[in-house]
């Protein structure tokens, strides 16, 4: 509606009329209600989280206050007051090592190839779609895959005789494959987000394709790639379903080797998610607290990993501005 000022009325009245038009319209009730709803949703989520945290931390408190070191260094036992998390920690540690050593380079390499080198053909688009599908496949399927290939078919490689293929190596390889599509996708997105002007600048001064990628594309995409790596590591840490199939031990686990003994890679193992599951299922007294304590440890590890990721990402982002 156009602002009209009646010609027959004096300037003071004209001012008032403009003022009236500008100040009319009451408060935005609809917008306000919407805002309240949004805050309520956020509040609800936070409430749930806080409740869970409080519950878990509360339940686990006795374990930490009474026998923290013992808990962290102990092995799986039938008695709650003797059981410890150490073997779970070791198993999960080595699984993460496998993920880092295998999935990270392969995933980043695949992403670089797909984004920088591959021509835009039907085949490359087909490959891209398939990788995205793979990221959505339920993890149990990966478990089956891992069981079939690493536990059974490649048993001689992944395992000592007595372990029957149900080893850390099998689990590590399985989880590396599970996590690979995620790494590829997030690295692809990060590389795709690098502005073309940067590449052009690099080519313009006479750099080869690899030099442009190494000096310009990768550093620029680093924050995004790192975020993706940490996401996939956290995922690898928390997945239980494949571990069940690939044979993480649920009961007692013989042997108590040092962390760095590579021989254990081909022996039976356990990992954090499985430990938590078992303790949570155990009806005997004291295991609730153990389960909660293990959950707290996992949470702490995830928080540390995320913090490291954020710090690294910030460092690379600062370099880019």
């Amino acid at each position, binding site marked *: 509606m156009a602002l009209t000022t009646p010609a027959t009325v004096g300037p003071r009245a004209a001012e008032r009329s403009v003022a009236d038009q500008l100040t009319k319209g009451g408060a935005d009730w609809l917008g306000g209600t919407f805002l309240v709803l949004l805050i309520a949703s956020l509040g609800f989520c936070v409430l749930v989280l806080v409740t869970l945290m409080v519950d878990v931390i509360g339940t686990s408190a006795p374990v930490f206050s009474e026998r923290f070191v013992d808990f962290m260094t102990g092995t799986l036992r039938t008695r709650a007051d003797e059981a410890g998390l150490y073997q779970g920690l070791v198993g999960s540690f080595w699984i993460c090592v496998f993920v880092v050593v295998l999935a990270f380079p392969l995933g980043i390499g695949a992403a670089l190839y797909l984004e920088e080198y591959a*021509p*835009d053909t039907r085949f490359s688009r087909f490959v891209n779609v398939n990788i995205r599908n793979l990221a959505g496949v339920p993890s149990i399927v990966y478990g089956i895959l891992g069981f079939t290939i690493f536990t059974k078919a490649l048993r001689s490689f992944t395992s000592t005789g007595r372990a029957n293929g149900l080893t850390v190596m099998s689990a590590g390889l399985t989880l590396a494959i599970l996590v690979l599509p995620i790494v590829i996708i997030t690295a692809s997105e990060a590389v795709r987000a690098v*502005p073309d*002007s*940067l*590449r*052009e*600048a*690099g*080519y*313009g*001064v*006479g*750099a*080869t394709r690899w*030099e442009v990628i190494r*000096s*310009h594309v990768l*550093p*620029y995409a680093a924050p995004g790639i790192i975020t993706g790596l940490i996401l996939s590591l956290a995922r690898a840490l928390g997945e239980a379903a494949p571990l069940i199939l690939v044979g993480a031990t649920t009961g007692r686990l013989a042997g108590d080797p040092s962390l760095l003994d590579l021989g254990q890679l081909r022996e039976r193992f356990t990992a954090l998610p499985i430990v938590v599951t078992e303790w949570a299922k155990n009806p005997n007294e004291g295991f609730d607290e153990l389960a909660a304590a293990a959950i707290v440890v996992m949470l702490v590890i995830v928080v540390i990993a995320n913090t490291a990721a954020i710090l690294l990402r910030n460092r690379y982002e600062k*370099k*880019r*501005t």
Partner: protein
Amino acid sequence: MSVPINLTEPAAVDESVSVGHDAEGEPRRAPAAEVVFAVADLSVYYGDFRAVRDVNVEINRHEITAFIGPSGCGKTTVLRCFNRMNDLIPTARVEGKVTYHGVDLYDREVNPVEVRRRIGMVFQKPNPFPKSIYENVAYGPKVAGVKGNMDDIVERALHGAGLWDEVKSRLKASGIGLSGGQQQRLCIARAIATDPEVLLMDEPCSALDPIATARIEDLMQEIKDQYTIVIVTHNMQQAARVSDRTAFFTTEVNPESDTRTGLLVEVDSTDKMFSNPSDDRTENYVTGRFG
């Protein structure tokens, strides 16, 4: 007593070029220029679409040649042919010949990376690397494997771009933190650090304010003796001020597909193009008579 009017015919000298007229209205002639780029019947396609056709032009040494014309007429496309930058677009295809000192740039044996070390480029929007000023300038020589004192090379390039005094105390500072005009001069320094023979400039001043623009135009005049410069510009006054020769491109509609293809209309000395062009289309464009 009749009025003496000079109607002497200009001397028919094939190789010399007209560089204005002296006090008696006689045309001044300069010795012949050496040809750096010779473009013959060039057409550039993106897939099936012909973006520009039938371009014939020569770029001379130590001259500034301007490409002018409306949007979509192919001037940037042709410019990017000179340093094989069109290779970066997968669907781009070149027909015809672009020779550099007689060598066909699109010959299979020719390495585009080597081409780009000798033919530098400055882009429309300043795009310094997100690294320090020093690293920005040093990058080109480094990947080219240039031996020698890198500090000297960087300093010389920054001097050449007229940026040294402003940044000499903060070479480690990020290149992105500079102002727009400074960033563009940094990009110029980066381009000349590899000691190229040719500088291609794609609307280098279009993102800059008038003062930064004037600085860069002055710079172009200063470095003209050391390089050969080809500049694409939308700003006609800039082309008139800065260039020795001007090439005017325009677009024509393809009736079947309702697309427009660019073509070269006229190439001549800048003085002639802006005082008395031969083609009506050129006249209409430079006077802004028709859009």
